[in-house]
């Protein structure tokens, strides 16, 4: 055999082997949205998984948040979704989730570390399935531009300050430094309900059915309404768009136009990167109302999808990402509050975080202990997004002067009733 023939034979064998490996690969598709840098982190972690598991190829579709909230449910309803998705509407997606329990090597690890959050992902009546895990636990709360307070010569209100105290302080600061937004609250029902529960909203009746409009709710809605009238809040967020559209104030906060930005822990990595040294910002404990000082818990879960053709491969990817060392690295690099009991108990070293970000993470982590049971109940309620959306849509209309608050309350109640009835129609 000549040298040329040997080389040809070797090339053919290598080619055949490559084809064989390629043919044996299982593709797992993952839809992922990002608030900060977590998309880069997970892509990096998945590359490592692929290097160790050559039989699995992961296609990571990085999509906008809106694609997850609006397009994914339609995709899933048509049976065309990805194999794994990072979702925020855990209750709404629950019916499409795959129970990973039969495919997991160590289901007890999942029960022990993700137990309290698994309920958020399960369909109603299901107490056993393991649909996924939390990529982060979020807590709503305010960020404050400390530099603006210093420039105005006004002291920051203390840890147990009320919402009214903060409204007064931020308005004074804004007036002195000519900032257009004393308080900016994301146009999001999730943000509003921390305030509402602190004001005494109970949200559910004795049977566990939604009963949203009560005195506590009205007190909170009236506060938000009055703040828009008095200039504590600018209409650009709650009064500028229609329906359930989300509006954040990241850009305004970054440009030092906002004194206090009511958002949440997921913003830390982004603020750390975008604000840089422009000014000092701090996370402060959630302000208090007559019923307490609660934030709203939440977060994004990574959920396996029922329609996958490769549940075993999906389970392997999920097991890898949910394993303690990998998840620790993920939380640590993306500056997220851990949604893993073991990691949270041990504590996490956010090595790459700036001192400002580290301090903020501590403030948010401390808030977890003070979360109201009503807040947990609302977060775990499968139809919570219906409630959130009805509130921002109708209160937004009242703020923009289109309707009265009394009319808004009636509409919130009827919207919730009608949409839940529509969902339950069989």
């Amino acid at each position, binding site marked *: 055999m000549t040298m040329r023939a040997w080389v040809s034979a070797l090339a053919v064998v290598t080619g055949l082997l490559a084809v064989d490996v390629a043919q044996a690969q299982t593709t797992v598709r993952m839809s992922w949205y990002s608030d900060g840098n977590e998309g880069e982190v997970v892509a990096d972690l998945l590359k490592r998984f692929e290097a160790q598991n050559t039989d699995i190829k992961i296609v990571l579709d990085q999509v906008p948040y809106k694609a997850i*909230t*609006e*397009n994914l*449910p*339609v995709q899933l*309803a*048509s049976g065309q979704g990805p194999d794994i998705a990072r979702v925020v*509407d855990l209750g*709404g997606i629950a019916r499409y989730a795959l129970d990973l329990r039969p495919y997991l090597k160590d289901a007890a690890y999942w029960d022990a570390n993700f137990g309290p959050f698994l309920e958020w992902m399960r369909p109603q009546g299901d107490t056993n399935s393991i649909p996924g895990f939390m990529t982060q636990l979020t807590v709503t709360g305010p960020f404050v531009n400390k530099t603006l307070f210093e420039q105005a010569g006004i002291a920051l209100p203390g840890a147990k300050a009320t919402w009214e105290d903060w409204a007064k302080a931020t308005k004074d600061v804004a007036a002195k430094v000519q900032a*257009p937004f004393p308080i900016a609250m994301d146009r999001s029902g999730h943000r509003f309900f921390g305030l509402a529960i602190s004001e005494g909203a109970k949200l559910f009746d004795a049977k566990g059915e939604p009963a949203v409009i009560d005195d506590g709710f009205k007190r909170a809605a009236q506060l938000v309404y009055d703040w828009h009238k008095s200039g504590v809040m600018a*209409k*650009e967020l709650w*009064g*500028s*768009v*229609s*329906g*359930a*559209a989300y*509006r954040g104030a990241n850009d305004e906060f970054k*440009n030092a136009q906002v004194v206090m930005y009511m958002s949440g822990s997921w913003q830390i990595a982004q603020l750390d990167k975008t604000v840089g040294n422009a000014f000092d910002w701090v996370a402060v404990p959630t302000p208090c109302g007559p019923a307490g000082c609660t934030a709203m818990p939440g977060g994004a879960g990574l959920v396996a999808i029922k329609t996958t053709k490769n549940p075993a491969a999906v389970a392997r990817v999920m097991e890898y990402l949910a394993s303690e060392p990998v998840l620790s690295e993920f939380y640590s690099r993306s500056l997220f509050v851990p949604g893993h009991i073991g990691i949270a108990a041990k504590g996490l070293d956010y090595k790459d975080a700036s001192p400002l970000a580290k301090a903020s993470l501590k403030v948010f982590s401390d808030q977890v202990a003070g979360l109201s049971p009503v807040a947990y109940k609302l977060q775990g309620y499968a*139809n919570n*997004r*219906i409630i*959130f*959306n009805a509130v921002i849509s109708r209160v*937004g*209309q009242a*703020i*923009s*002067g*289109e*309707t009265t608050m009394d*009319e808004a309350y009636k*509409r919130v109640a*009827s919207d919730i009733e009608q*949409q*839940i009835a*529509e*969902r339950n*129609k*069989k």
Partner: protein
Amino acid sequence: MRLVDWPMRGLQRLLGERRMAYVFLLPNLVFFSLFVFLPLIINVVFSVTGGAALFPSERPYVGGGQYAYLFDCGSFVDPGSCREDHFWRGVANTLRFTVFQVVAMVLFSLVTAVVLNMRIRGRGFFRAVYFFPVLLSPVVVALIWKWILQRDGLLNAGLTALGGQKILFFIDPGWAMFWAVFVSIWAHMGFYTLILLAGLQAIPADLYEAAEMDATPRWRAFWRITLPLLWPNLIVVIVLALIRGVQTFDEVFVLTGGGPGTATLMVVQYIYETAFSNQVQNFGLAAAASVVLGIVLFGLTLAQLAASRRRSA
């Protein structure tokens, strides 16, 4: 060429010359049936079903329930009295938007076309400039104007530089609707101007020469020669602007998000949000609303075509 000729000639011999027309129409008809008529039928089917399921087989039949819900109104002139007030607010806004937009669009396009038809210096340049926005995507158009009109936008920067106060254009309902109409006209006027310009150039020059010899004033020549001969083109422009106005969604959605409140919420945005962006994706209600919209559009087109036929008869 012969390869194509051969089967065609065979077919023509088989079917006869007249029936060959249907052979040429068939491929398009198949595509239309598949991508227009079939979805239309599915939409009507969805409009008589309820629930949150996507597949028609899993959706319960509710008869005219969705339509009854849409039309459950105390007074049709007061959207607040309707059970589905957002739909009626969308209807009212769309009507207002369409009326203002069509009137202004036709007027501006006509004036621009008449001026661009005259022998002015830089005529080619102006024609290109007015047509340029038509080439832009509606989303890009809206984003450009949003950048100009927002709190810290270009316009407010100019106003404050001149010592004025910032105006929050997207917070005041009147301003928001004004800019929605304005941006729509800015973006599409070039297209309608082009149609009218083509019509103006088709008018024989000797008619104007004869009028000039009779010492007819220019405005009279415009009224008696230009307008009547341009009428078929004007009808096309009015019909197209009307249909576009009723269907408006993308530009306004990106520019104002339907707000403030629901001041610029259009019917198509209502349909989109009801079907896709609300938590419970209410395909049945959205389908019923789109059937109502379809009927209105169909009626408008028929009325305009009838008017055009009467004028040209």
